[in-house]
């Protein structure tokens, strides 16, 4: 709901001075907010008004359920369902900078104080201490001046917002509800900001080996220690001057707690509740669980606690959930890639009939789900599936029978290396097969030579031939810290998490709201880091790596992987 159009500096100063004069002028002519009894907003209980205001802000829907009407660029009508306040100001309300347009903060804390062009992040107390005399570009908003801005685009200093900011035609009660929400949006720091420390935690579920734990904890703890030590050594000089004061206001020490879960996954949410109550954390970093991440994901959604890049290949796949930012969709994404690749082939034969043979495991089911969902999304008819009995490897006779009975043109073998002896059945015909690089793990290059030209591998990482070039810096840093196990990619993923977090902490500035942390990651530019070809972001995007390669295993006893596709994304 705001944005600003830059004007030459001198004019800006004049506008600022004009705004200052306006401070003493009578309130601008805006319809007065309707008076209501204490504890109510537009005749509604405050919590009800807050929920309706949130819907206006995030979904662009009026309390009546109709789209919020507005106009952009002087005469272009827009329904709130096309885009809403949160599209530009983002969920926490701290705004964005995109496409050359600055979208100003519209959260409660910032609306309640004057805005300054210079050093806008200094608190009123800091301004007093520094004896800063520069006038405010606009005074703190009253409900009346805020309503006037939302209706006309003109702020209380007389400054007109950029024409891309919608002018909202709202009734007085609807306006009161939206303003009530804005007043409460990011008005107080989130839990986990304690004194001069930003508290983080990481979750480790039972069953994670000591080596794997250390592969994540050593670099994470090292990062926290370096972050805290750096400020002690260089802080005084770096923070001299007014700009330094502004920067130092954003600095917090970091702490990292380790929340070790025990027992069955059904009990984890209660354990996490207890951890959070005892040690309120601002966000979770990384995390390890040998199986499904779902219980931890569900807890984070409920507790509105960000979880940044858990090291899991079994994430929750959702278009709408908010609080967990993953590296990728994991196994599901490999199934997706198989569907997209088959669908995109010029030759229609391999996609004629696809049979999924699924290992009875979370991994096998996630691979199959990824294929199933994507195949349907591509407008294709459902394909047959066989779920193998639990713990029983695919036998040669079983595969031969299935191939004879179903006559598939392609078989998706979502199984581990235990199925290798059965693959001979493929050589009796021309049936192509897909297998998952993740599921085969280190056994991938032991794929029987006889079937290597018939088996396509879904491969979610960068081409291994190119990886050393990208991992060199991470390897150098991590190599000094610990004995690494590169095949798990735990330490390199932790390294990537740290790089993204470092940037996010800088971008978050002193606005310590959990949603703002996620908003800032959403605004990051694409990152080229170890393991994944590209990590890309955007508001609400929760799976940073979005594609896969299709590979084949080359010939010989020490085979290389042969790339058979572009980065499969559609």
């Amino acid at each position: 709901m705001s944005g600003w159009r830059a004007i030459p500096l001198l004019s800006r100063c004049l506008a600022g001075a004009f705004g200052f004069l306006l401070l003493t002028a009578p309130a601008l002519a805006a319809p007065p907010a309707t008076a209501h009894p204490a504890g109510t907003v537009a005749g509604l209980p405050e919590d009800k008004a807050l929920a309706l205001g949130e819907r206006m802000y995030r979904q662009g829907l009026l309390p009546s359920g109709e789209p919020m009407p507005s106009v952009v660029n002087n005469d272009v009508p827009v329904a709130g369902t096309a885009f809403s306040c949160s599209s530009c100001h983002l969920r926490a309300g701290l705004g964005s900078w995109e496409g050359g347009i600055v979208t100003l903060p519209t959260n409660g804390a910032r609306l309640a104080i004057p805005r300054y062009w210079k050093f806008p992040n200094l608190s009123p107390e800091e301004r007093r201490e520094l004896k800063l005399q520069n006038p405010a570009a606009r005074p703190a908003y009253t409900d009346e001046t805020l309503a006037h801005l939302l209706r006309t685009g003109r702020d209380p200093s007389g400054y007109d917002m950029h024409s891309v900011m919608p002018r909202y035609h709202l009734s007085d009660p609807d306006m009161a509800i939206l303003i009530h929400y804005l007043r409460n949006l990011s008005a107080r720091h989130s839990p986990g900001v304690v004194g001069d420390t930003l508290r983080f935690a990481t979750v480790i579920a039972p069953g994670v080996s000591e080596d794997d734990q250390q592969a994540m904890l050593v670099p994470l703890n090292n990062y926290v220690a370096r972050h805290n030590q750096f400020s002690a050594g260089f802080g005084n000089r770096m923070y001299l001057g007014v700009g330094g004061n502004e920067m130092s206001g954003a600095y917090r020490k970091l702490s990292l707690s380790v929340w070790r879960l025990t027992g069955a996954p059904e009990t984890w949410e209660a354990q996490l509740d207890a951890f959070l109550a005892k040690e309120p954390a601002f966000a979770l970093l990384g995390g390890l669980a040998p199986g499904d991440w779902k219980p931890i994901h569900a807890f984070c959604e409920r507790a509105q606690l960000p979880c940044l890049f858990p090291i899991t290949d079994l994430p929750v796949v959702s278009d709408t959930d908010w609080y967990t930012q993953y590296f990728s969709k994991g196994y599901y994404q490999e199934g997706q890639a198989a569907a997209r690749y088959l669908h995109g082939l010029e030759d229609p034969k391999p996609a004629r009939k696809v049979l999924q043979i699924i290992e009875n495991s979370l991994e096998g089911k996630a691979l199959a789900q990824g294929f199933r969902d994507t195949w349907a999304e591509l407008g294709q008819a459902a394909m047959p599936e066989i779920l193998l009995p639990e713990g029983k490897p695919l036998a040669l006779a079983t595969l031969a029978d299935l191939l004879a009975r179903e006559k598939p043109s392609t078989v998706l073998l979502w199984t581990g290396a235990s199925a290798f002896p059965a693959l001979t059945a493929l050589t009796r015909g021309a049936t192509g097969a897909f297998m998952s690089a993740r599921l085969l793990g280190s056994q991938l290059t032991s794929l029987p030579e006889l079937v290597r030209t018939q088996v396509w591998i879904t491969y979610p990482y960068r081409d291994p031939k190119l990886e050393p070039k990208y991992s060199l810096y991470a390897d150098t840093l991590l190599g000094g810290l610990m004995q690494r196990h590169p095949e798990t990619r735990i330490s390199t993923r932790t390294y990537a998490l740290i790089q993204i977090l470092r940037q996010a902490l800088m971008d978050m500035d002193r606005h310590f709201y959990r949603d703002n942390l996620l908003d800032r990651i959403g605004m990051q530019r694409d990152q080229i880091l170890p393991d994944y070809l590209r990590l890309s972001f955007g508001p609400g995007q929760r799976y940073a790596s979005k594609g896969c390669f299709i590979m084949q295993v080359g010939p010989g006893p020490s085979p290389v992987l042969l790339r058979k596709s572009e980065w499969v994304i559609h």
Partner: protein
Amino acid sequence: MRRNPWATLLTTASLWLSGSGFLAAQAPPPYTRTLETYTVPDVVLVNQDGAKVKLKALLDSGEPVILDFIFGTCTTICPVLSAGYANLQTKLPAGPSKVHLISVSIDPENDTPKVMRDYLKRYRAKPGWDFFTGRREDIDKVMNAFNAYIPNKMSHYPLTLIRDPKTGQWIRIFGMMSSSEFVAECRKAGVL
């Protein structure tokens, strides 16, 4: 007369900032219009229905075309450009549209056909407005061909390209247009 050193500094800084384009980056002026000749790359893109589209054949077919670059989760510019498209569609004569509105994704990894379908639905797009995605290399070729390449999607800018069906030249509009300005530009180009 002794000049105030702060005033000198302020003026110098102002001139430097204006000259360096710093202010311009934050403050798109009212739109600018130029006439350009572009060579459309011979690439295959994918539309919101998952169908493959030969871009060169489509754009060189002689039908009236308007093109912009957007992405599904863009915060500021794309929603407004798309509101402009949606509004233009309401002003077109009834019946099958002669003007083909095209949006090319600059975030091909995230903008799958499903994301693009949902996006068009949000803007109540009518037939005649297509959203294209594709391989990143191909998208880069398209951006380069229209002198619109940006390495980072967050730093893209508002651009609308209208193809003059008579001359094959492109009217390049940099900046945001109001509804009446958009219609006027389309009329001037002969696409309405």
